[in-house]
């Protein structure tokens, strides 16, 4: 399977993402590479402080935005829930969601890295 097939299999809406870029597949591929870099940069640890998480909201919000724009739907949905829980002062629920989506996130980033390297 090529990168796009594998990502589709992992729940990514590849055709939606490519169409947002006017059909430019090469650019989409390049942006997937940038996405992996951003995810690493905006790394959110599962044991974040439940009393001080303003920075976590910002990071989750940023990941949500780029995941949405690249149509990486499972991560977009997950981080949307995390942001929402954190804004409602429910950090424990946010952590539950994070626990569920981190393996998906790792799978998606590993897949992109494998194909781009």
């Amino acid at each position, binding site marked *: 399977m090529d990168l796009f097939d594998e990502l589709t299999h992992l729940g990514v809406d590849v055709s939606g993402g490519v169409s947002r870029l006017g059909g430019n597949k090469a650019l989409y591929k390049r942006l997937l590479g940038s*996405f992996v870099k951003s995810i690493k940069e905006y790394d959110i640890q599962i044991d974040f402080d439940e009393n001080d998480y303003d920075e976590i909201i910002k990071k989750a*919000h940023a990941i949500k*935005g780029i995941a949405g*724009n690249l149509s990486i739907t499972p991560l977009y949905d997950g981080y949307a829930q995390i942001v929402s829980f954190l804004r409602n002062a429910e950090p424990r629920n946010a952590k539950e969601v994070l626990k569920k989506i981190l393996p998906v996130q790792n799978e998606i980033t590993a897949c992109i890295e494998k194909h781009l390297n």
Partner: protein
Amino acid sequence: MYKEKTILIVDDMEINRIILAEIFKDNYNILQACDGDQAIEIINSNPDISAVLLDLIMPGTDGLGVLRDMKKSGRIAIVPVFLITAEENEKTLIEGYHLGAVDVIRKPFMAHFLKHRINNIVELYGHRNDLAKIVEEQVARLNHLNQSMIEILATAVEFRDCESGEHVKRIAGMTKALMTEVSKRYPEYYMTADEIDKISKSSVLHDIGKISIPDSILTKPGKLTPEEYEIMKQHTVKGYEFLMQFPNIIDESTYKYSCDICRYHHERWDGRGYPDKLKGDEIPIWAQVVSVADVYDALTAERVYKKPFSHEKAVDMIKNGECGLFNPKLIEAFEALTPG
């Protein structure tokens, strides 16, 4: 391909900027900023930006900070700003709208709709800005025309007085310079540059009442008899009454200056002027300024009954009270303007 319009994309996430740039690259020149401070710098140094796509949450100066700066500089009225947001944060969005943002773009971007929405609004703003420019130019032309008519009227009156028409222009110039100096030196007389400009324009009408003075008095080469002098003094009140009949000749604030200047430009600081014998600051400062300008010009100009005095002699005469007493602060400002 030549692109006439420029769009600024402001987002701290490069991926979002690249996607937006890709969506708009065919129709616009693209500028990008990765934070609010950079955005403000680009906006202020690029007067031709057609639209700003602005992320709200950014490190440093955020999207609302950029909007505040644009509101302060007035750019928000001519450049449409679209807020980029990934969620429903009602309070922030409402604040954004209050600061002048025109619309909200939600992430993930819907490329097709986004293109249409932004193109439509950019086009609308373009038409609106063009119309505003046309109206502004027409207002300026009308004002210029109006001022020309007023100057023609004032000059026509002056011609009877054997003046060339240069007198009113000199008075306007001196009034502007002196009023500016007075305003700068004394907070109690502070006026904006715009108001000073109106006062200067109003000053050309100071002697309009001379239209009612008979030629035999107005152009008499010798000294006026006491009776003739009383008639001559009437030009202040006559000018005022004349203007009172035409309240629409100029805009409201300029009209007030013109009426005051006509009536009070022969009043003196010690109450020994005419027609109302006002004293001190009972005389509006704009009329006081025109008095000094008028006296200086009368002294330094040649008249049928006298040769011109030198600048130095004229300044001395004004300082010594030979032409009546003036506000000492005005004299100080006048001396500062005419050194030596």
